């Protein structure tokens, strides 16, 4: 039973928080408007070691543990939820893809769970409606059967997306597109786990920031003679949001330490998604009409979280996975040895 945070972790999280505060937060609207991040910012991000956190050192990554990587992504997402997606060129399946072809490390990669695609002898067909990338040099597709690599898949720019607009976005249209298998079901599952960690961390950071913004506003905004945070109806909502965020953070953190129990991660990802969506929407509500405007960041947090919650099979796939497997793990408090 451990709840810890050592000095090395704190230094790294401090660096992520500073990068977020100095380089992301003030500019996130500009990035969104441009639909991209400046090249020099990408270089700075990589130089600071925030890119490829989960990639092994042999492929130029930092080989961070799941817990620390998630904490860094989460800290960055507080400042701009789209940034860890837009500034990292490789995506969640990079480790296994680069095992197959290390030359792909310099290209722009993406990952998706192939829910509605048909994969046959002649290739892959179907549509991946939204990939948060301006350009996709390779696409890793996870199915129940394995992980598949598609090189230079046909893609075109999307219309304006709900959120994550700084990542631009493309639609990939596959018509018997050739593929190669990178790994079996276990490799696919590992990639999906990596995606759930990434998405969960981003949603947690974004929701935490939305809640902070809502609380700050609620202490400044006066109605009926006192700050709106001090009206019980709103005070209880803010207290509940803080509690749910804490619960989500703990559940997610505990799942990260159990690589042997993917259903715990699926459960945690689903829970984080549910909580983050609710906290973001409630945060907009706290600000009332102001929350609906670009003048405040809560509306962007709500759109970004909604988009992240749909990526890579989304929280829905995690819920489905958890429901499918819930009867396999009947002991909710195991007597461990």
């Amino acid at each position: 039973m451990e709840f810890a945070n050592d000095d090395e972790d704190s230094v790294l999280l401090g660096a992520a928080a500073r990068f977020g505060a100095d380089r992301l937060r003030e500019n996130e609207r500009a990035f969104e408007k441009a639909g991209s991040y400046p090249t020099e910012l990408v270089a700075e991000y990589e130089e600071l070691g925030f890119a490829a956190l989960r990639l092994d050192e042999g492929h130029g990554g930092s080989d961070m543990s799941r817990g620390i990587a998630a904490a860094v992504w989460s800290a960055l997402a507080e400042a701009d939820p789209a940034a860890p997606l837009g500034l990292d060129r490789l995506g969640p399946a990079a480790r296994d893809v680069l095992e197959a072809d290390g030359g792909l490390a310099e290209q722009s990669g993406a990952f998706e769970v192939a829910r509605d695609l048909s994969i046959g002898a002649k290739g892959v067909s179907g549509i991946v409606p939204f990939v948060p990338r301006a350009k996709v040099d390779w696409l890793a597709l996870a199915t129940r059967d394995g992980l598949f690599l598609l090189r230079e898949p046909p893609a075109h720019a999307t219309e304006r997306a709900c959120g994550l607009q700084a990542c631009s976005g493309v639609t990939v249209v596959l018509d018997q597109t050739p593929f190669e298998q990178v790994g079996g079901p276990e490799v696919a599952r590992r990639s999906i786990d990596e995606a759930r960690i990434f998405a969960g961390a981003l949603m947690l950071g974004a929701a935490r920031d939305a809640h902070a913004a809502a609380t700050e506003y609620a202490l400044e905004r006066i109605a009926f003679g006192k700050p709106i945070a001090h009206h019980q109806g709103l005070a209880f909502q803010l207290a509940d949001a803080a509690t749910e965020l804490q619960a989500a953070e703990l559940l997610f953190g505990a799942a990260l330490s159990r690589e042997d129990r993917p259903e715990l991660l699926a459960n945690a990802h689903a829970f984080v998604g549910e909580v983050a969506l609710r906290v973001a929407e409630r945060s907009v509500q706290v600000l009332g009409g102001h929350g609906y405007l670009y003048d405040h960041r809560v509306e962007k947090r709500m759109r970004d979280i909604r988009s992240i919650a749909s990526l890579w099979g989304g929280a829905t796939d995690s819920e489905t996975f958890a429901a499918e497997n819930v009867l396999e793990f009947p002991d909710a408090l195991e007597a461990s040895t």
Partner: protein
Amino acid sequence: MTDRCTRIDARFDAGFNNVLLMMRQFASEHLRPAGLDAERTGEPLPVEHPLFVAFNKTGMRFGMNPNRKKKKEDDGAPKEPSRSSRMGILAAEELAYWDQGACMSLPGPGLGGPPIGLLGTPDQKKRYLKDPFVDPAKPAWGAYALTEPGAGSDVARIRTTAVKDGDHWVLNGEKMFITNGARAEWVVVFATTDSSAGREAHRAFIVEKGTPGFSVSRVEKKMGLTASETAGLVFEDCRVSAEQMLGGRDQGGKAGFKVAMKTFDMTRPAVASMSVGIGRCAWERAVHVAREAFGPKPKTPREILLSDRLADARRRLDAARLLCWYAAHKMDHSEPNTVEASMAKVYAPRAALFATSVAMDVVGLAAVNDHLIEKCYRDVKIFDIFEGTGEVQRIVLARRLFGYPSS
């Protein structure tokens, strides 16, 4: 927000595991059957029920004492954090899993223990925390009486009065919802010396069974926790000596209130853990029923829907347990944990109620009639009410997190 942890591991070591297994063995053999006995009679377990002597013979003693002196370590090595809070909540969840009503009926000082442990004189500690509990063959109980018919969450409104009369205090008033109140050898009773002065005027007295003017007005019939006795107490010109004041003298101010608040930081995560235990009991039983009916994988739309709800309940129970453990972890590390304790108390009872309700859906009408799951559903509701309602916890959180005003 509270601190962030980059390394969370919910597994526990052999020491915690041994506590869990010890509790499991005792509770499965004694608590569950006793709880079902009470369900059959519809009455609290009688004082002569064999559970109580069986419990005493185990050597286990409940009644947390936050003021317990730690052994001094003079070898210069860094001190290991305490493990008692985490042990306590692990035990609380496991015992509640088997039967919380029977657990609350177990002999010991109960909630009266912590205030005497914190503020009592050496003589009071010996007389009330030690002597009555020496003989395992003679189960004994203590009790804690704060709540009144007109004052629950707002304890400043208590109306039981204490008036000084020479070397005595005279108590008048009524107390309600007192666990083990009718069988207790002694009760810690909160009263006011000036009803217009709020908490400043609150004082606590230890009133012994048989004291003239002290009587039991009723034993309540409740929705759940049937095995546990919940009593109403009456004080009519009840004279107690000045030495019966907690601490042996008038310490003035808010000492008593501060004791109650400090106690809550420890007891709220434990109470929240109990609700998790009850939720887990219903959840596991429902999963067992579902596996029998569905097989290992759900197939039909109904099976898939119910499995999804079971998974949802599992998420909430696991999150609730972690909130409890985190609050206890902070307590063990001597870190402030009022926020974490209230978060656990806000969240866990509702998560557990949801789990028991989902469990009833899984089992269907069969769960409505005399079934362990419906017992869990009835038992768990009170956890969002006692030890500070969910609404009181939200006020605590709002005060701590963003300065919600006290009045």
